[in-house]
């Protein structure tokens, strides 16, 4: 719920970004989610990442469907337009909005119910079109607003708060996205800001569909013993495989990386992602090998995290459609109408 305005009091000593904005300028309305909700940490990471990239607030478009996660688009970047659409259909709103103006930054926030059940079809097709957007799944394995039903990401054997055991196989958004040819696939944990912020920045700059599946425990309905999406369980079983340092085009690489440890990926705008492999055997640029490894570790009950797969120079929707660099919503009308003379020519075929 977003009816509680957040008082804006900023201390003069707060650090400013290239636009002269402080982090407070990237905040939104006060969150009405439960205290300790993983989603609020993700909101904080989005604010941090947007501030760090010096995004013009009005150029940020925030999109969501329905659910706890979908409410969060009201909690960051209040200077950007938001669109809280219908359950599971955010990708189509994002597609249309992006078609109308390709030059804005599109951030979609969804949940595991919104994406993997009711919205599974639209999610898959947004990936197929390589729609240029950052798509964050706040994944907690449970329906919060309707009080604790299993979602499609619930693991086999996980227990609901009321004691029921889930017997159906989960849909894993990371593996699914990789199968569909996604060009940027990451997994993270709401409790790991150090990992999450640079991932969001890289995802925002990635040209094409960037997926970050963020394990985000539900403190109210899925944080108990027996749940595989609790804070305790996630901390124990999540395994950083690839850390991604995002380095914008304007900045130099300052950190020192050991020989063989780092892999630099250059993005379409010249920005770079330095991938630090924490797991020497893992290759985030080899789709088939990465897929197998993620699945292998999953069998052992572990979630590999980080930037799990990246392929920076893919064609996005507009490249395939052949639209101009300028926004379609700004093409002057004169360029859109064949005019009376054109009509005359057209009609000659129908005489």
């Amino acid at each position, binding site marked *: 719920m977003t009816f509680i305005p957040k008082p804006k009091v900023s201390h003069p000593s707060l650090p400013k970004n290239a636009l002269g904005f402080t982090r407070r300028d990237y905040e939104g309305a006060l969150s009405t989610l439960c205290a300790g909700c993983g989603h609020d940490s993700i909101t904080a990471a989005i604010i941090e990442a947007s501030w760090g990239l010096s995004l013009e*607030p009005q150029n940020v478009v925030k999109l969501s469907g329905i659910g706890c996660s979908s409410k969060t688009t009201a909690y960051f970047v209040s200077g950007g337009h938001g669109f809280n659409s219908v359950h599971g259909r955010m990708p189509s709103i994002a*597609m249309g909005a*992006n078609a*109308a*103006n390709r030059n804005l930054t599109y951030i979609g926030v969804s949940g595991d119910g919104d994406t993997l059940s009711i919205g599974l079809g639209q999610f898959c097709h947004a990936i197929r*079109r390589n729609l240029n957007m950052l798509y964050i799944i706040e994944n907690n394995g449970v329906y919060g607003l309707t009080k604790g039903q299993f979602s499609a990401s619930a693991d086999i054997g996980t227990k609901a708060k009321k004691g029921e055991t889930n017997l159906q196989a989960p849909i894993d958004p990371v593996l699914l996205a990789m199968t569909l040819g996604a060009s940027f696939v990451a997994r993270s944990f709401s409790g790991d800001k150090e990992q999450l912020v640079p991932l969001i920045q890289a995802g925002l700059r990635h040209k094409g569909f960037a997926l970050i599946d963020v394990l985000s425990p539900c403190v109210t309905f899925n944080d108990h013993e027996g749940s595989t999406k609790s804070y305790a369980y996630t901390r124990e079983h999540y395994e950083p495989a690839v850390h991604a340092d995002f380095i914008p085009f304007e900045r130099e690489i300052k950190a020192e990386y050991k020989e063989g440890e780092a892999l630099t990926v250059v993005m379409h705008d010249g920005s770079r992602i330095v991938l630090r492999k924490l797991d020497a055997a893992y290759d985030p640029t080899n789709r088939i090998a990465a897929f197998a490894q993620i699945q292998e570790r999953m069998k052992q009950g572990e979630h590999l995290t980080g930037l799990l797969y990246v392929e920076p120079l893919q064609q996005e929707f507009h490249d395939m459609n052949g*639209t101009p660099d300028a926004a379609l*919503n700004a093409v002057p009308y004169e*360029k859109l109408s064949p005019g*009376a003379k054109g009509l005359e020519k057209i009609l000659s075929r129908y005489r």
Partner: protein
Amino acid sequence: MMTNDFVIKIATVNGTGSASANTLLMKSIFRSGIPVMGKNYFPSNIQGLPTWYEIRVTKHGYVARQGKVDIMVAMNAETYGKDMREVAPGGYLIYDSTWPRPALLKREEITVIGVPLARLCNESFNGVRTRILMKNICYAGVLAALLDLDLQKIRELLAETYGKKPALVDSNMKAIELGYAYTKEHYKCPLPLRVEPFSKEEGSKTAGHIMIDGNTAAALGCVFAGATVAAWYPITPSTSLMDAYKGFADRWRVDPETGRKNFAFIQAEDELAAIGMVLGASWNGARAFTATSGPGISLMNEFLGLAYYAEVPAVVFDVQRVGPSTGMPTRTQQCDLMECAYASHGDTKHVCLYPSNPEECFYMAVEAFDLAERLQTPIMVLSDLDIGMNDWMCRDLEWDDAYRPDRGKILGLDEILKLDKFYRYLDKDDDGIPYRTLPGVHPKASYFTRGSGHTQFGTYTEDSVEYQIVLDRLVRKFHTAKTLLPKPVVRMHGTKTDVAIVSLGSCDGAVQEAIDVLERMGVVLDYMRVRAFPFGEEVEKFLADHRTIFVVEQNRDAQLRSLLTLETAVEKSKLRSLLHYSGLPISSSFIVEGVLAEIAPGGDRLKVVDLPRKARMP
């Protein structure tokens, strides 16, 4: 003698090339200056099922079916018996006499003309497929001889159609000449039913006209309106609208210097996504549209409610087909009137436009985009399969280069800078229409769009009063809509009468003709064709001014009548329904008979002048 006034029906099997022969016949008559109507009755199938094409030569320029057949070209053995029975007494039946026809099927009161089409083609062409195709072109030659069509015009048309393949022009022409020569040799040509160009004094009755289908015309309207985002999921009978848009856009919207396309054409994964894309694009300042049919509207319901409540413009073409459910996908009906008017859960109402022919599809398409942005709501354009997929003779489409899109109340940067604060849903102008802003302009203009309860200031609410303020304003907006929508078209009879017909959309041609026929029988009727929902004052007045009103529409449940009783003050008992829902386009004779059936028993109840006894259509 029925020169320039008769109906030909051609029965074939689909996927055998008969479509080109039929178009050829119709266009050659049209080019001779004689008005013509063409209707295609085709199966939901690619190849092998029965299909019919009806050509009506009509010197009076009527655009609807009359309801009878004078000449049947019975090329399909499977439907031969039924086809023969359909010929009006005194009419003609043409069949392929290569094989003997069933002896049992005989009618003394019609003339049967046998031409060995298959044999003629087998002797002259090679290859099974070619022979089948040519047999169907060959009957065009038979008709050319019987009706006295201009062979030169036919050759010209073939040359235009197959411009890049001269060999096809020659082979098609050869097939036509085979049929033509055989018929001339064996039968007395032309028939009394024939085509004869009007005298010089009378002139051409097709000059200044085109033959075009409604989907093509609507697509042209979208191009001229400046629509840049087209999202859709294929569904008969709307698909050709999107195909046509793409065709025109590929020709007229590609930047000659850069080769880039000033449009986005997105085939969605389903209708839910298609309307979602349209809403996303419209919300973001592009003119966007989708085309679908009844089943698609069903799927779009949830999003349409969001668009209504969150006030997002959209243009939706519903090319109606026969329901319920999958129904008969290739047959026509006006069965989505209620569905479109009240689509979605909760209190929702939508602005609907009802074009009656392709010409109106073009102009209403343009108007739909202006209305969508002016009213910030979805505009549903309800065409149907008959309008959308059949070629209609219409007046030339015209365009005024002074046209500029009405973008409605969108605040630009300068206006935003002057504001202290922007509130999305305030009724500043007292017309129920709020102001909107686009993303990417200024942080001060940002707002949150949502389908959940919101205040006039654009914030979330669960407060009863705040919620109702917005809901009540939406009603005021709907009232404003009434003043902006196309007015009904009224045809008042010179003589005062209190009996009338009210109808809409593709019924128009049949109603117009029926009124002429009834007048000749002494039945005098006024007529109003509604062109938009919600209904305005003019509709109210017309309903109030007449005592008995026949509501003519093409569905089973009297949906227009329901809308009229729900949304106007009309007394329900005044409205009598004439319902046509067979899937074929309504005919004038259906309406004539329907009106006469009502008024014949108690003639004095209605104003009837000199009604002949047992008056019925021939």
